[in-house]
């Protein structure tokens, strides 16, 4: 079974530029999560989708971050315009009910550096 795929793996941009990250969850996983992990900290949830609907986006900075999950499969996270404090690893995870349990499977992440 293929895991959660993310691209790109690394991205360097200047502040005020735009950037987009892509996530392809495990096939059949209805729930998709985007986490932000700043260096030296634990991941923090930005947004959670159930199919193509948003379950939780309470910590998403909506003035500059946006995310969509078209057709309930792939997802894109966008930052526009980027700030220096957005430098972090962006992790995508997906889950599905299996034997009564939703285990979250994480992708390798995208490391963003804003200069």
């Amino acid at each position, binding site marked *: 079974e293929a895991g959660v795929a993310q691209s790109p793996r690394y991205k360097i941009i200047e502040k005020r530029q735009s950037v987009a990250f892509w996530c392809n969850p495990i096939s059949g996983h209805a*729930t998709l*999560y985007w986490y932000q992990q700043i260096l030296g*900290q*634990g*991941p923090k*949830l930005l947004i959670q989708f159930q199919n193509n609907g948003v379950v939780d986006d309470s910590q998403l900075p909506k003035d500059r971050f946006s995310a969509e999950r078209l057709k309930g499969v792939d997802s894109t996270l966008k930052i526009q315009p980027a700030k220096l404090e957005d430098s972090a690893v962006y*992790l995508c995870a997906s889950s599905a009910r299996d034997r009564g349990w*939703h285990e979250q499977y994480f992708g*390798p*992440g995208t490391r963003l550096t804003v200069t």
Partner: protein
Amino acid sequence: AQTVTQSQPEMSVQEAETVTLSCTYDTSESDYYLFWYKQPPSRQMILVIRQEAYKQQNATENRFSVNFQKAAKSFSLKISDSQLGDAAMYFCAYRDVLGGTSYGKLTFGQGTILTVHP
């Protein structure tokens, strides 16, 4: 809001010995889940072990076991017979039982870097 605290930024252990990583959390809920995740330098987050709050018995997975103290809101991870491959960042995480389901978000601690010496 739920919070998770890991008070040990770094820990080290000799190969084949035992190490315990500490975690405390704060919640007003009575039903929830707790997890330990491992994140090697490659950054792929891997589930090590999970504990359902309604279960009194501590979870075990091979060399990994937890000490769950619900009243004290403490959840420590014990790694026995440590191996070089255990070296990683370890995160303690909490999840609400969301609407009777188990797909709620994870709230992570700050992490503990574990070094294993040969």
